[in-house]
């Protein structure tokens, strides 16, 4: 049971970070490998505020999200925008370039070491039930992720903004024709995606660690979530993250000798049978 719960918690964390990617990659159809770099930025903002400025942990989370979103918007306005119409290969190369720059930048400002992180007391410790040990922080992650999943789903499916977004993605010309400001929608969506990355990065420091190689180390996991969950599908990402989290933790726990092999195998097998992802719809455009 504890293994399953840990799996769920790590899946939820995975979801928190990769749902931002699901938004940019899935909804906007931009292969953004630099997503991990945004998550790393959020992590550094959180750690710096916490350790040097003494800001309380819960307050650092929105600041991390906001700061990341601002950087995201700046980059979107100047660089990303030019590549919306480019081929996937160009987008991949461009974002790998950003990843390299972010790694070197993190080295420069923060050094190569792992960043220390001390959680506030009310998030430490465990709740012990018969047959089940629940870390409080993990519980916190699970609850927060579920709330965000619910909120995002409502946002995309049930609001005016969501409708405009889906219209802009499916057919930008027609969307412009009915008076939607497609550029603005895309900028906002990108900001949303990077803000979620920043938030996920900040929350992930405790479990994933934080050092300059973060964007490369975990980008594979984020991509797997999006690819398996189906692009642009928030519930799909949630389910995929949970599956991956549980499989990954269980695999590492029960058969440590094959380690991370399991989740790559799961991904490849899933993609062979469902190239569109578990809950995919055909990518627009």
């Amino acid at each position, binding site marked *: 049971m504890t293994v399953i719960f840990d799996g769920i918690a790590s899946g939820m964390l995975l979801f928190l970070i990769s749902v931002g990617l699901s938004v940019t*990659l899935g909804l906007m159809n931009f*292969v953004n490998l630099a997503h991990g770099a945004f998550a790393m930025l959020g992590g550094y903002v959180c750690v710096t505020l916490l350790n040097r400025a003494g800001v309380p942990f819960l307050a650092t989370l929105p600041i991390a999200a906001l700061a990341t979103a601002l950087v995201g918007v700046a980059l979107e306005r100047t*660089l990303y925008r*030019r*590549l919306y119409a*480019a*081929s*996937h*290969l*160009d987008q*991949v*190369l*461009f974002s*790998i*370039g*950003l*990843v*390299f*720059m*972010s*790694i*070197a*930048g993190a*080295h*420069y400002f923060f050094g190569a070491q792992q960043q220390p992180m001390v959680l506030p007391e009310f998030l430490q410790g465990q709740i012990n039930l018969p047959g089940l040990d629940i870390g409080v922080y993990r519980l916190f992650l699970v609850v927060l992720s579920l709330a965000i999943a619910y909120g995002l789903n409502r946002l995309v499916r049930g609001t005016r903004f969501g409708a405009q977004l889906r219209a802009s993605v499916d057919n930008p010309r027609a969307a412009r024709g009915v008076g939607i400001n497609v550029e603005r929608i895309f900028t906002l969506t990108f900001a949303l995606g990077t803000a979620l990355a920043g938030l996920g990065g900040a929350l992930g420091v405790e479990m994933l660690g934080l050092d300059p190689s973060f964007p*490369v180390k975990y980008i*594979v996991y984020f*991509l*797997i979530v999006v*690819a398996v969950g189906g*692009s642009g599908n928030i519930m799909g990402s949630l389910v995929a993250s949970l599956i991956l989290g549980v499989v990954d933790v269980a695999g590492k726990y029960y058969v440590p*000798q*094959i*380690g*991370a*092999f399991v989740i*790559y*195998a799961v*991904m*490849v097998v899933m*993609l*062979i049978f469902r*190239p569109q992802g578990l809950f995919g719809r055909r*990518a627009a455009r």
Partner: protein
Amino acid sequence: MQAALTLDLAPIARADRWRPAELAFWLIPVAAYFIFPDNLVLLTQIAITALFCLSLDLILGYAGIVSLGHAAFFGLGAYAAGLLAAHGYGDPLLGLVAAALVTAVLGYVTSFLVLRGADLTRLMVTLGVAMMLYEIANKLTHITGGVDGLQGMEVLPVLGQFEFDLYGKTAYWYAIAVLFALFCVARKLVHSPFGLSLKGVRLNVGRMPAIGAPVNARLSAVYTIGAAYAGIAGALLAQTTQFVALDVLAFNRSAELLLILVLGGSGSLYGALLGTIVFMSAHHMLSDLNPQYWQFWLGALLVVIVLFARDGVMGGLRGGQRRLGAALGRTKQ
């Protein structure tokens, strides 16, 4: 297709078919040997990376298959040759052949997975295959040495004559010779009907079946060939360094390779070679100047290339050629 794959190589060996600029290009490795006698190790690395880049160019530049996991084949080839040499079969050419065979099989098998999806799925599947191999190599420590790398390789002299020396002279000429031979094969390949049909697939995949070209068979054939090339490059690295590190399979290697190819300009064989020369030299100098942060400039370079110079060095050469007309008239390939 069969005929294209088993071409008689004699005609290409004749130099008269080659353009003078190409011949001049192949004098560079000879000149480099005399100009930089102290940097033979680096030059050997360049030759190996050039071969590796050539293999990606075949599948990406000519056939348009995107791959984020090409290091899978490079690493597999390196381990194949390395394991052979570590277990007493140290003949270098035997190692190359074995590496090519093993990687070709893997390439053929995985080509079916890769061809199932569109771009994004391809990126993910190639990446997934590479990561799986990485994990296998990482965990099978009793065979591969895991993180410590594969040690104890004993590579015999090339052709029984030329022993690998401390200064890397044999290694250099060996790598250059293999690169040149395989380059000639690739050159012939892309100019053959088979190569032209690949270009057709890349440019208009919908129309190729209409003129009777079996698209998937062609793509899986070129993917297999590309895999074998990458495997040979990996084997060369293993044999010349007498060591296989786990990072032959790493994601960074695949990503860097894409960078090199785009820097040089994909879809032209010399682009792959020029890109490698420029990249490796820049890498060497930047990491000397600025060991920790050269990666930043690398990233910046990549962003700039994608935004402003999509065709890379070859594109620049072609543009210059257009402007200068006859002056540069024959650098184009």
